[in-house]
């Protein structure tokens, strides 16, 4: 953190290395008088060329290779990849035990990752600590709750997936090995405890102090009637978008802008949009379990939430949802006859979209007759959310322009962390610089 004041009329707020986000990013804000002149979210995470590395690989290799884009949400990459490959090969696993098992392990990733964000990355902003460990010294009970939640998610991922980071059990068509009912039983106790902690988290988060902010970006998320969006669905928005994942390219465009060095996504007709917890909550409130809905209401949330600072409550509500749902899946679970269905390759293009904890993740692959990948395209949530994050940043600065540099810097960082950016995910943009006004 390096606040610099150049002179009375122009000042610069910057953080050269953002903390408590996944990956490497920097923030740069320039203010002239009381007017914000420039806002930049610079991402200097090195490019890793996954789309290029995937060319020539077998279609069966994509889940394991793409999971290495992000150690925080590997399941999201594996799930979007298998959905896209199955789509290319004319196989749809939209119901039945394999789908439920996929949803179950995805719940594990959500519990771990949302728990990580709420407690380790986001909470210190509200309680006034530089980080989780500093917070833990004075609030041991809060820290232990966060770790217990994370651990429950990791235990679920490890049991179904083999390990918590880069699980090994997910393949095109299903799983290498499906657990028995008895094997899932030891998950019930920790998940019930996690659900209690999640409920306590909603109550606790509801009492945090929030700035009175209302933001109006277009909200985009998957949606499926009767179920909260996690592993599949149509892509919908609050401004009437309602498309199949296969139509993503028709409506969304990714650009490498001249002075931005970045690929970022926008809706072709309208511009920036937001994916992630706030979008899912606003678009699928009705699909939350009764327990999660009631918890949200008790914490003072309406059916819509437009304040990004309150995303911490929304994530806590989603934690209740996925703990509840994981328990329901385990309760109903019957192992599939075979752990995977046959998926024969063919020359085709396939699309897959699922909800990573921090937003929608889209994959598209073109395959040759024998399943060799000819072309790959991956659009991670953070590249979709970039423009909205910058718009939020600009609004935060404008509203708090009288604050001293140190405080303003912290507020700006918090505005970025509101959206749980995963910069490691954004493997295919190098640096974002937006010049305005």
């Amino acid at each position: 953190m390096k606040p610099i004041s150049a002179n009375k009329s122009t000042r610069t707020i910057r953080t050269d290395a953002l903390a408590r986000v996944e990956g490497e990013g920097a923030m740069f804000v320039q203010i002239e008088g009381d007017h914000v002149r420039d806002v930049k979210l610079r991402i200097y995470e090195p490019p890793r060329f996954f789309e290029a590395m995937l060319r020539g690989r077998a279609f069966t290799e994509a889940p394991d290779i793409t999971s290495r884009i992000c150690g925080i949400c590997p399941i999201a990459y594996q799930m979007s990849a298998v959905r896209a490959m199955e789509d290319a090969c004319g196989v749809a696993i939209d119901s039945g035990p394999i789908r439920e098992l996929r949803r179950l392990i995805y719940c594990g990733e959500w519990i771990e990752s949302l728990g990580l964000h709420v407690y380790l990355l986001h909470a210190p902003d509200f309680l006034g600590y530089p980080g989780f460990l500093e917070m833990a010294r004075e609030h041991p009970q809060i820290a232990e709750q966060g770790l217990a939640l994370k651990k429950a998610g990791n235990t679920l991922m490890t049991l179904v997936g083999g390990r918590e980071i880069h699980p090994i059990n997910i393949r095109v068509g299903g799983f290498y090995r499906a657990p028995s009912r008895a094997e899932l039983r030891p998950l019930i106790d920790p998940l019930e405890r996690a659900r209690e902690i999640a409920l306590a988290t909603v109550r606790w988060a509801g009492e945090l102090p929030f700035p009175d902010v209302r933001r109006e970006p277009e909200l985009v998320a998957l949606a499926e009637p009767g179920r909260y969006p996690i592993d599949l669905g149509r892509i919908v928005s609050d401004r009437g978008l309602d498309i199949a994942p296969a139509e993503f390219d028709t409506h969304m465009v990714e650009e490498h802008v001249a002075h931005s060095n970045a690929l970022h996504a926008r809706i072709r007709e309208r511009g920036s949009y937001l994916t992630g917890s706030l979008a899912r909550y606003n678009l699928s409130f009705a699909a939350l379990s009764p327990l999660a809905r009631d918890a949200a209401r008790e914490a003072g949330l309406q059916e819509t939430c437009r304040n990004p600072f309150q995303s911490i409550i929304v994530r806590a509500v989603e934690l209740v949802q996925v703990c509840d749902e994981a328990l329901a899946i385990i309760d109903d679970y019957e192992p599939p006859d075979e752990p995977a269905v046959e998926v024969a390759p063919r020359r085709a293009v396939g699309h897959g979209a699922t909800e990573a904890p921090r937003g929608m993740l889209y994959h598209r692959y073109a395959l040759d007759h024998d399943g060799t990948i000819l072309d790959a395209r991956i659009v991670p949530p953070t590249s979709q959310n970039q423009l909205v994050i910058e718009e939020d940043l600009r609004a935060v600065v404008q509203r708090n322009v009288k604050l001293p540099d140190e405080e303003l810097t912290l507020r700006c960082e918090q505005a970025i962390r509101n959206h749980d950016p995963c910069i490691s995910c954004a493997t295919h943009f190098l640096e974002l610089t937006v010049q305005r006004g």
Partner: protein
Amino acid sequence: MTPKKTLAVWKFSSCDGCQLTLLDCEDELLTIAGQLEIAYFLEASRAKVQGPYDVSLVEGSITTPREAELIQEVRANSKALITIGACATAGGIQALRNFADVEEFTRIVYASPDYISTLATSTPISANVHVDYELNGCPISKQQLLEVISAYLNRRRPRVRAHSVCVECKRRGTVCVMVAHGTPCLGPVTHAGCGAICPAYNRGCYGCFGPMETPNPASLNVWTGLEDRDLVRIYRTFNANADGFRESSEAHQRQ
């Protein structure tokens, strides 16, 4: 009382998964923080204590000119430097560029390749600076990480075995997937540490812990019954650039 040793965690080109392993030590994290001062760990805190540091954990490989400079600074500021994971120890999945034309890669991903600053190769940390200890794995094992930290604090040698995954399978009581089912498996040439997870899930090992000490892939390759093209692929994943795997993929690419 002597002051606590300081620990720094650094990220280079990587997925964040190996440093997340430290935060995933849910039962041990607060104990570690009691024994060591976590002086620099951006993923966990915006507080930064100035170096030099007693021990640095380094995640990721070197793929840009900026990283090549930064690792020199990290080395100069660290009494002990430990690499964590396949990227830092072997170059990682991004070392697939070492077998290809990086300009071609850039053109595939970016509309304006001129803006991209990258090196032609992805190299392990040890190709750039002296490394005191290396942990394998994509991702690393939590137990091995705790063992290395504990060994460091107690001034003893870490007990990290360099034998193959096969030994772990036997200890776990898993029936050999290659012998019993004919499933190709890199277990015989792969470094132990994961606990032989894949065979326990009816799947062949895919070598994410990299080569064991003195592997013999030439012999294994005959046993797998795989074609050259597939042999090239299975060695070219997360440890493609590691000695022991690189030669094997190159040999089969020539055939």
